[in-house]
């Protein structure tokens, strides 16, 4: 690994984080809160460390290969979370540093799992920073870095592959820098539209911004104890629709922008995703109709929760922990599916499930007729062997990781349902689970050890396993 280059880049990223922290600082100033100092100290410390790394490592060669891409992504996500946790800790609003770290990782990985028992007691600056981490983490810190800084690196595709979720990472436009810019422009535009639409619904400006950040990154941090439940049905519908929109592959938005509608309509992943969402909404609406007594309310709550879970956001309008078993089962399964590749959502990703499904079907054909040659096609194009192998291996590794985390959580004095859904909720970057970690509860009761495990699980899930696991491989660190 080209350590100098990796840590130089980390220095640049820390400076970016320091710059991003100016926004919550401004919010604190507007609301005249004492948290200003927590932000100022963190900002200075982050900038200092970042600047020092850049200064001492300014002489480095720029060669980058796949391993450097993985290393930069994994190391920087951990480092950004470590520094991002400082404001919570320094302002004493989250007195324990590990709790603050959990909260920040949950923010950057767009999970939305919280250890806070009383969210409404938090200052505006902290609430803003918490949700802003969602927004930054959703599209990716390094994609942002590429959009504004790099331009010279020929091999920045390695960073993009490591950070952007999905089995196949393609570029929208020839240059990586321009691709990153297009992604962020779409991201910003969608966020702004949502803020405006929420303002129309009478939601206060601060709440609109924070909730739009939470939706855009498919995170799920809110400002109220009952999440979105207290807002008008209009606002709930807006957020539900945007959660589904942010779960769609951003490449499709670009295709719409350049008026290649046919390619959008041919996209198999989109149809499977939307089909699953609507089927789930329909079934759950029937299932919970008797609890609410009105079709409109049943459909709204069902749609909101399905959108929230499938996009791995984690907002809620009602306590779905009280829903019947069928609805809860569907929600639990949707947690694993997640949304489309190339979106800000977590989970296994629909495209991967399609690939694995088609591979299984081919395997069955092959068993019946050992000499058949079957190719896997997606969107009318043949998928090459390496991609298929990667998808299958990803799925296996995903299962192993899930089992390991679940086992480590078993030492806690909670029910199987709690631990299982907590693992699923963190690993898939959703947020709330069932039972003791349901939408009306939180993760505060877990031990510090389990919180670290879950923080790691969130990073694993957001970066799609490989970068974080490679961090433990000696081969990655070997000097070259």
């Amino acid at each position, binding site marked *: 690994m080209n350590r100098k280059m990796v840590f130089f880049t980390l220095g640049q990223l820390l400076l970016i984080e320091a710059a991003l922290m100016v926004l919550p600082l401004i919010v604190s100033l507007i609301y005249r809160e004492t948290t200003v100092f927590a932000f100022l100290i963190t900002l200075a410390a982050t900038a200092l460390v970042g600047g020092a790394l850049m200064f001492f490592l300014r002489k480095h060669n720029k060669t980058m290969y*796949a391993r450097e891409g993985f290393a930069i992504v994994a190391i920087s996500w951990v480092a950004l979370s470590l520094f991002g946790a400082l404001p919570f800790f320094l302002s004493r609003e989250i007195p324990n540093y590990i709790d603050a770290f959990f909260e920040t990782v949950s923010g950057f990985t767009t999970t939305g799992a919280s250890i806070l028992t009383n969210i409404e007691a938090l200052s505006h600056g902290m609430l803003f920073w918490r949700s802003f981490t969602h927004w930054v983490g959703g599209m990716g810190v390094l994609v942002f870095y590429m959009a504004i800084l790099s331009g010279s*690196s*020929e*091999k*920045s*595709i*390695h960073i993009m592959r490591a950070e952007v979720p999905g089995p196949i990472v*393609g*570029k*929208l*436009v*020839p*240059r*990586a*820098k*321009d691709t990153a810019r297009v992604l962020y422009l779409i991201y910003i535009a969608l966020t702004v539209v949502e803020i405006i639409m929420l303002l129309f619904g009478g939601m206060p400006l601060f709440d609109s911004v924070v909730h739009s950040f939470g939706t855009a990154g498919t995170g799920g941090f809110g400002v109220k104890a009952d999440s979105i439940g207290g807002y008008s049905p209009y606002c709930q519908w807006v957020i539900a629709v945007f959660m589904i929109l942010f779960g769609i592959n951003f490449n499709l938005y670009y295709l719409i922008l350049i008026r290649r509608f046919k390619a959008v309509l041919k996209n198999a992943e989109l149809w499977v995703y939307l089909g699953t969402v609507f089927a789930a909404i329909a079934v759950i609406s029937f299932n919970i109709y008797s609890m609410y007594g009105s079709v409109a309310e049943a459909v709204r709550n069902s749609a909101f929760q399905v959108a929230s879970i499938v996009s791995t956001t984690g907002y809620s309008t009602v306590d779905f922990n009280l829903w019947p078993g069928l609805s809860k089962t569907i929600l639990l399964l949707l947690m694993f599916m997640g949304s489309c590749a190339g979106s800000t959502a977590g989970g296994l990703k629909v495209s991967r499930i399609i690939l694995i499904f088609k591979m299984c079907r081919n395997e069955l054909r092959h068993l019946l007729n050992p000499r058949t040659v079957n190719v896997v096609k997606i969107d009318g*194009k043949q998928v*090459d062997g390496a991609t298929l192998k990667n998808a299958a291996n990803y799925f296996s590794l995903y299962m192993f990781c899930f089992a390991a985390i679940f086992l480590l959580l078993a030492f806690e004095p909670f029910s199987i349902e709690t631990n299982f859904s907590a693992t699923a909720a963190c690993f898939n970057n959703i947020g709330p689970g069932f039972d003791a970690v349901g939408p009306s509860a939180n993760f505060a009761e877990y031990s510090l050890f389990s919180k670290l495990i879950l923080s790691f699980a969130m990073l694993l899930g957001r970066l799609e396993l490989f970068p974080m696991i490679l961090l433990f491989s000696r081969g990655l660190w070997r000097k070259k």
Partner: protein
Amino acid sequence: MNIVIAGCGKIGSTVIASLTAEGHSITAIDTNVKALDAVTDNFDAMTVCGNAADSDALNEAGIDKAELFVALTGSDEVNMLSCFIAKKMGAKYTVARIRNPEYNDQSLGLLRLHLDLAGAVNPDYLAARELFNILKLPSAANVETFSRRNLEMIELRLKPESALAGLRLMDMRKKYPGQYLVGVVQRDDKVYIPDGNFELSPGDKIGITASPTELHKLLKSIGTTQKQAKSVMIVGAGRTCFYLAKMLLAGGSNVTIIEKDMKRCNEMSDALRGAVVINGDGANQDLLLEAGLENTDAFLSLTGMDEENILLCYYAATKNVPKVIPKVNRDEFALIAEKMGLDTVVSPRKISSNVFVGFARALKNSLGSKIETLYKLMDGKAEALEFDAQDDPSYVRIPLKDIRLKPNTLVAGIIRSRKTIIPMGNDTILPGDKVVILTAGKRMNDLADIIK
């Protein structure tokens, strides 16, 4: 600028490398997924898998927004067809690689006209022409020609016994008067645009610009042998060999060709009257000696294997052949060859990528002074560019000594109606002149870029 490149083979990937380095947005098309993976891994470019002559693939590559389409696949026919379709689908300019000798005669003009090609590039022919120029002046490591050979630039490696070693440039001018200019010097890894006080030392690689006759005079007076190579031995009968042999035979040289493949030998012997064609393995030393290696003026190894070419040339050099030239396509190997004392190497890849870089820069700057030729010198650290001067008040009719040039930039020659001027402080650039610029600094698109 949006550029679509079809074909990611040896030439294709070199062109992609140099054009992405120039900051263009490149989309590459190929049928081979592995080749495309190598492109995405190594260069900042987008890829499309498919047949370049298929409108779907071209559409996906965004051909309607492309300013330049370059077809570099292995098949001339696919190149022509894809250029034709790309042009119809909205590509502004199209360039095809056409390397088959059958298309490179009178039919080329017809093809270019009716397929509406902005250019047809034949890397093998370009390499052969460069080799031919070098063989005319074998003492030079490299020869670049500008404006239909009215101005040449040669690269010389100064040997310890050279008369120039230890001389300051102003003293050199006094000792060897003439119309020439030492415009660029490479010492170790650094490239200098020297002034009069610059002292040459052994091991330097210097670039001299002058008209061909002046160059002959200068080389004669500094005592560097410069007899034209009269008998040439070539190993590997590829297309480059064919074109080169044809030129050499027309100039009256003796050519011996050694080729393993019998069928190819037959074709050569059929097409090249007067050449001695030997069927056998060029790596066989006895065979080379038997064919008269020790009495040849120049030995060229043009097989498809860089390693074999370098080793064969090294062997020939030990047998005191005055000029040996290997064909080396990979840059890393070219450096190794130079370390082994093989000053001259030829790389068809590099030659054609220079052509495309020049072409793309000229397109980018379609209003200003056009780039006519572009050469990368001294391992790509310096460039020689030929511009077509316009009536631009920022440089026209101003004595050169009054133009504030950018650092590391030099006006190395002016060609005015076939007359070559090696410019001094009082000379001026006039509209319609061809101006040759040497630069070791920023990249230039326009003649006006020389001004600070």
